[in-house]
């Protein structure tokens, strides 16, 4: 029979091996919180060679790719992250979202991309870790970035917490109401740990956003820099200057509505545009551990068979097209799924390039294989299946004897 000291918890949890190496996903090291990415140099005990590597060290919004172990950041939409194959966009990579038609789902995705950066930046206000760069649009557009989605349970919890924080007699009595015996047997602690296990290893990697809401405190210049596009070489210079000024942060560069005459009013020649995109890629590769690029372009203005778009696609690491359904198909879906409105999608999502995989020579084109739906709190992507009209009712009547 063995005896335990009185202060010790009976049948406490067995210590887990923290920091055990895994082939793809590095686990939490002892001196950091769960969900913080640690660079290989840091894991090996070495010091980061460049300032930009510091941006990755201990960043709660970075996790290794499930395919290549390269550090990735979330695009703000978990479904887009999955489609990219790495569960995110590898840092130092770029994504081009193309859209046909008069809809503007791509701008929603741009907002999610930037909002995710702001959400990461605000996790620990004393240690800002992310900076957003918005090209071509101003602070007013940035004020529309969506806020983090709060479910009904979270809202209730918030209310309860608010009530508990108020000074009242009942609150003071409740504070000293802990069950000491339960504590002795570690029941409270065990309950907390079982909760922790269910949380993902990278709990802050991505958030769910409510696109009908806005960030309660609009992003300020310390977390989002708006860069005008009146002169593209100057714009490039300013983007690079901003990256240099944020040496220990991940910099998310968003270029929404690229080449849209509403935003790009100055006359710009095609070679100038190509030089700008090439310059953006140069910045990405110059600061590979710090910068990610998100650009959207409308294909009605510049279709895919336009050679300029062909060249731009060559320079991007990943290319995704949003192609909303034509009205006939949309009507058919509404008719078929009249009792299941959740199944009605908004369009096809085509994949043309994927980061790292396409570069290595893999053929990643997936046309008409996915469909998307822009919901209030999620940009949903599912495998596309053709809706089939149910005509059984008529057949049944014929078969009746």
């Amino acid at each position, binding site marked *: 029979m063995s005896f335990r000291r009185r202060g010790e918890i009976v049948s406490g949890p067995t210590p887990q091996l923290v920091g055990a190496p895994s082939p793809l996903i590095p686990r939490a090291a002892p001196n950091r919180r769960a969900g913080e990415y640690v660079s290989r140099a840091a894991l090996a005990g070495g010091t980061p060679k460049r300032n930009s590597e510091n941006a990755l060290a201990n960043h709660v919004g970075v996790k290794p790719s499930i395919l290549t172990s390269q550090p990735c950041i979330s695009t703000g939409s978990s479904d887009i992250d999955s489609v990219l194959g790495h569960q995110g966009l590898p840092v130092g990579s770029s994504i081009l979202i193309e859209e046909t038609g008069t809809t503007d789902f791509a701008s929603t995705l741009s907002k999610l991309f930037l909002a995710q950066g702001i959400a990461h930046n605000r996790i620990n206000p004393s240690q800002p870790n992310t900076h957003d760069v918005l090209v071509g649009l101003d602070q007013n557009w940035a004020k529309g970035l969506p806020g983090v989605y709060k479910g009904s349970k979270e809202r209730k919890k918030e209310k309860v917490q608010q009530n508990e924080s108020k000074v009242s007699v009942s609150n003071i009595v409740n504070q000293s109401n802990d069950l000491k015996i339960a504590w002795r047997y570690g029941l409270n602690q065990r309950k907390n740990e079982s909760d922790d296990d269910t949380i993902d290893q990278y709990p802050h990697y991505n958030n769910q956003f409510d696109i009908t809401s806005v960030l309660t405190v609009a992003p300020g210049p310390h977390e989002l820099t708006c860069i005008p596009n009146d002169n593209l070489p100057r714009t490039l210079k300013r983007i690079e200057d901003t990256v240099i000024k944020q040496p220990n942060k991940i910099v998310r560069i968003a270029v929404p509505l690229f080449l849209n005459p509403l935003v790009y009013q100055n006359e710009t020649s095609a070679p100038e545009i190509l030089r700008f995109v090439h310059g953006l890629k140069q910045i990405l590769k110059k600061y590979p551990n710090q910068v990610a690029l998100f650009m959207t372009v409308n294909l009605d203005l510049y279709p895919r068979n336009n050679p300029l778009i062909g*060249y731009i696609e060559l320079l991007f690491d990943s290319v995704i097209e949003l192609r909303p359904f034509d009205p006939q198909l949309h009507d058919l879906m509404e008719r078929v799924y009249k009792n299941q409105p959740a199944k009605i999608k908004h369009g096809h999502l085509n994949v043309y390039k994927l980061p790292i995989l396409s570069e290595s020579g893999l053929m990643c084109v997936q046309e008409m294989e996915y469909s998307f739906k822009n919901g209030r709190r999620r940009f949903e992507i599912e495998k596309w299946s053709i809706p089939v009209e149910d005509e059984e009712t008529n057949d049944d009547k014929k078969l009746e004897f």
Partner: protein
Amino acid sequence: MTSSSDLQQQDLVVFEDRSILPKSNPEHNYCTLVLYKASTRPTWLNVALVENSLFGTCYVNKTPVSDRSTAPVVFASLSTDETTYRKQMARLKGDLAGFKYVDLFNSYQDWYTKILLEVDRQSKLGKPNVFIENPEFLLFLTDITVDKLLAQLRKLNTKCNLFLISSSDESLMEYSDSPDDFATIHATFLTKLAHRSSLIFSLRPLRTGRAEDVTGELTIGRGLIGSPKKIVEREYLYLINKEGTVKLFYR
């Protein structure tokens, strides 16, 4: 329909003597064109050609290559940075001292001087094989014209074997009425280049769309300039998996 799993894996063979790159021939400098579509990047083929040049081996092949002669390599890209290629080269077992990367991605203005300097340096080890990826970007990033670019490439070709890797997407190959149009310039450049090349590799996806067991088609063909060594014109199907292994099959 047969799938690649039913087919026997083949070796990459370019010349009649089962070699991949031509032996150093003082009288003939090869100009090779590697054409690709955006969905079938030729990175794996570039690495295979570089490996064959540096070590005389080829990671794609099961049987040893007949001609094991080696030559230094000068590699320059206007669309991809050095890190990307260094990562790809890491799979090669051997000393990469004979591999020189010229950074045209970050500074392309004095591209010709930079490459020529490296070619002169590497010439001490033998006639170098020079790879230039996406030289067509120079037509739009700088003020150079198609004819001037071709003249400079031809001048370079007098000192080395030249491998030009270029995109041949449909959107870039359509002539238009405007002479300043991207597609017109690109198509003119590639057509003129094809007339000056001795060997053409072409990579494209399957016409029928995406398949799980085939990545694309590789065609090896003669250029319009004759080659002293007979080229085996052939079509392959190839399969690349996520681990980076490449398998070739006869079409």
